């Protein structure tokens, strides 16, 4: 094969599908193991096999119609701006630093776009599909309107493109690792399971399933993808604890006013 766009397009898309469904598979299996039931956040809502199959079908359609073109276009665009495909690879510290930046940028993009999607007209016409499952599961991470997949996917794809455009430094391996980690993050956040060993217990600002499950349950707040800081700063945290904190703050404010 002597067509780099074709080669990397196929390679990237196959990798995306393998990671997406490969990462979703353990969550499907866990759903059938009673031991893990105690870790299910919304324990009473277990997705049926039919629901998961229906979800997988729409996800596949979305992957082929929306994500495939994005993946296909990424390589020539990134090459144009100087993405590297050669050896030796960049230092792992370089890759880690770049991926951390992509996470922060994507999280910011996701927060604001996702929050916008909850504005009435956009919610009804676009985002409602993603909220079909109030108790999400791994496969449902990309169960969404094609428009939503495209808009939110821009945060994942254009962060590295902007980076390489500005700095001229990006290796395609860094991009692949970033995509894999981003997929893991999205699928795990939709898994519906909260474990004692979940990442946010060690990284308090990491969102994880606990954070996103509340969003699906309550349909409001917790708009971020990877981190918790935007919801904290913008006071859009969701859940009973956040509601109580909000009430307390309001009461304190009123008490001060009364004094």
């Amino acid at each position: 094969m002597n067509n780099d766009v074709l080669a990397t397009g196929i390679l990237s898309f196959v990798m995306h599908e393998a990671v997406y469904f490969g990462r979703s598979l353990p969550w499907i299996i866990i759903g059938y193991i009673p031991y893990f039931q105690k870790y299910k956040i919304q324990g009473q809502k277990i997705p049926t096999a039919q629901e998961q199959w229906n979800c997988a079908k729409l996800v596949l359609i979305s992957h082929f119609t929306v994500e495939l073109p994005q993946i296909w276009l990424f390589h020539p665009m990134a090459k144009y701006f100087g993405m590297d495909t050669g050896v030796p690879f960049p230092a792992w510290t370089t890759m880690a630093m770049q991926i951390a930046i992509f996470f922060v940028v994507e999280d910011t993009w996701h927060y604001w776009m996702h929050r916008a999607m909850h504005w009435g007209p956009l919610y009804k016409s676009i985002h409602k599909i993603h909220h079909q499952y109030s108790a999400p599961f791994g496969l449902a991470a990309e169960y969404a309107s094609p428009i939503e997949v495209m808009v939110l996917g821009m945060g994942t794809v254009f962060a590295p493109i902007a980076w390489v455009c500005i700095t001229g430094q990006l290796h395609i391996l860094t991009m692949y690792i970033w995509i894999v980690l981003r997929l893991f993050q999205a699928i795990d956040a939709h898994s519906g399971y909260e474990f004692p060993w979940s990442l946010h217990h060690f990284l308090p600002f990491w969102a994880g399933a606990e954070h996103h499950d509340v969003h699906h349950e309550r349909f409001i707040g917790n708009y971020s993808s990877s981190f918790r800081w935007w919801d904290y700063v913008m006071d859009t945290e969701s859940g009973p604890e956040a509601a109580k904190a909000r009430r307390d703050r309001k009461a304190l404010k009123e008490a001060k006013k009364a004094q």
Partner: protein
Amino acid sequence: MTISPHSAPVDAGALLNFSPKRESLLPPGANSSRHLKWRQIPRHVIHRVRLAASLLGNRASVDAEWCESVCLAPPGDPSFNIQKALLLPNNLHLHSPLFYHSPSNTTILIIGTNSPAMSNSTLLASPDTYFGIYNELSKYNVHLNVFERLWAVSFSLIGLVVYRNANHDHHRVGMPT
């Protein structure tokens, strides 16, 4: 299409199949054979000539000068010392002083050759399989780890290295005269 005076007595000229579209991008008055970009050699030609030297590295470029030296220079040509180039991968100026902006991390990957012009060179191995190429590449690229070698072989097989090199020729700092 003619090749430089260093050309070996092989039908390399016939093998080098220039793309008219690409050729038209050459500077006015440029000798196209001297400004041949790596990518302009179709992959099958690389296989036939068994030229499998690729230049990898950020913003590197390859053009006719180096290409001719590597794949077509006759044995004993004093200007051609591929073994030295291999051992000193950053010393591209040995062979191509005119057109290289050679970054410090430039790496030369030699995969093999069976060109008649190279038959007496140190690169007699002509691997045909993936791991044959890997082994050959490993001999001359000891600074690469296993993953980098696998990556380099895979990408060179699908022509991505070729693509990358050809698309950074704007970093060239001089032209052959």
